[in-house]
């Protein structure tokens, strides 16, 4: 028996789950897909007094079309669903593009959108992707809720804006704009490992084929997803040329200051950001479709 002792509850309703969080918040951990929490329990790196299993909350497992033309994705939607769901692939392809990098099929069968975001591993793909998408996150607590922008959700290493009594319930994705393409690139030692560094990019063109809007977000190169604003600004209003993408890569690398660790030096990771930004922008341009989703 490897996990430490804990008190286990699998509430059948959201209200019940929120009441448990209100009562035990600071001593509780929420169990969603279990692909991050269960290893921490097995190694006893986490010793929560209470484990609140949210897997019975079927209401959090839906992908629905939002009134604004965007999508509302429940926190309990599995990564396998994000990878395969037709609405996601058509209306928010960036999420589907990121999924093959997340672990392996056997991990994505259980891992959830909300679990990945709430765990906030700095090398994870989904946090960077939702920052690039300007997603908005709904955090519920007993008797209330608030909506937080993705960029404000990630506070530090493995740390989010979630209060101990709050549960991430839904991620709202804005409508996919017309003439937009996206791409994710990363480098890992083996496929499925955590990234040594990665970049998620989105490009929207105007009617004349110039860049109307660019999003470049790095992951694995800081404690939280890093919006590479200088690179984005350098692209906006200009032609999407190889030279512009190379310059954006240079500016993106200048916008990060990654640490050395056992897997790679900070200088190597910085170089990765330059190369992967250029590649991701090149592929995002190739993926631009004429019409809005």
């Amino acid at each position, binding site marked *: 028996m490897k*996990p430490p002792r804990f*008190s286990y509850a699998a509430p059948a309703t959201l209200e019940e789950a929120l009441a448990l969080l209100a009562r035990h918040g600071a001593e509780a951990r929420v169990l969603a897909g*279990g692909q991050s929490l269960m290893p921490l329990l097995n190694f006893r790196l986490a010793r929560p007094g209470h484990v609140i299993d949210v897997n019975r909350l079927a209401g959090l497992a839906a992908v629905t079309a939002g009134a604004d033309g965007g999508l509302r994705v429940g926190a309990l939607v599995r990564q396998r669903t994000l990878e395969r769901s037709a609405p996601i692939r058509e209306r928010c392809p960036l999420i589907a593009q990121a999924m093959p990098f997340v672990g392996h099929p056997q991990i994505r*069968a259980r891992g959830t959108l909300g679990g990945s975001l709430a765990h906030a591993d700095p090398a994870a793909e989904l946090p960077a992707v939702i920052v690039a998408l300007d997603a908005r996150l709904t955090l519920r607590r007993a008797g209330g809720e608030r909506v937080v922008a993705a960029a404000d959700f990630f506070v530090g290493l493995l740390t989010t804006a979630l209060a101990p009594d709050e549960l991430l319930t839904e991620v709202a994705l804005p409508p996919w704009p017309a003439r937009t393409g996206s791409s994710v690139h990363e480098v890992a030692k*083996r496929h499925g490992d955590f990234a040594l560094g990665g970049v998620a990019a989105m490009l929207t063109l105007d009617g004349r084929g110039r860049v109307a809007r660019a999003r470049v977000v790095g992951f694995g190169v800081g404690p939280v997803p890093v919006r590479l604003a200088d690179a984005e600004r350098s692209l906006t209003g200009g032609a999407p040329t190889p030279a512009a993408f190379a310059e954006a890569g240079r500016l993106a690398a200048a916008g990060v200051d990654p640490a050395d660790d056992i897997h790679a030096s900070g200088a190597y990771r910085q170089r990765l950001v330059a190369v992967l930004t250029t590649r991701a922008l090149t592929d995002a341009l190739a993926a631009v479709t004429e019409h809005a989703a």
Partner: protein
Amino acid sequence: MSETRAIALTVNGRPHRATVETRLTLVDLLREELRLTGTHVGCEHGVCGACTVLVDGEAVRGCLLLAVQADGRHVETVESLAPDLEHLNPLQAEFVRHHGVQCGFCTGGILMSLTAALRDNPRPTEAEVRETLAGHLCRCTGYQGMVDAVLALVAAR
């Protein structure tokens, strides 16, 4: 006092009832309570794939699911594959023929991942077979024999 729960689940078509500690993992339930030791325990953090079993038809890590979470579910393990003690199923037979198995530690999990993948897509490409195998670590055979085994199975269909 340890917290326990009564659960009921189906394993390889047979109904089981058990009273388990809530912190017991599914793989430990299978091995230690149900004595189904074909599913192995490796890294216990979801990387090696040795503990992979099917839950309601999906390949998942047995070390990253609590036994209580399998309440009411259908679990399939490597023991379900062979029709009897004297025979192997076609996938297992191809593994033997193509030297896809050596020490056997990883084999149970790999066979279950491939079983789920082949139900999902009976005619995978070599790249798709390798994608399925990427979720598993084997330190003996080096995967090529396993790829050959699956492709031979597919070609014979």
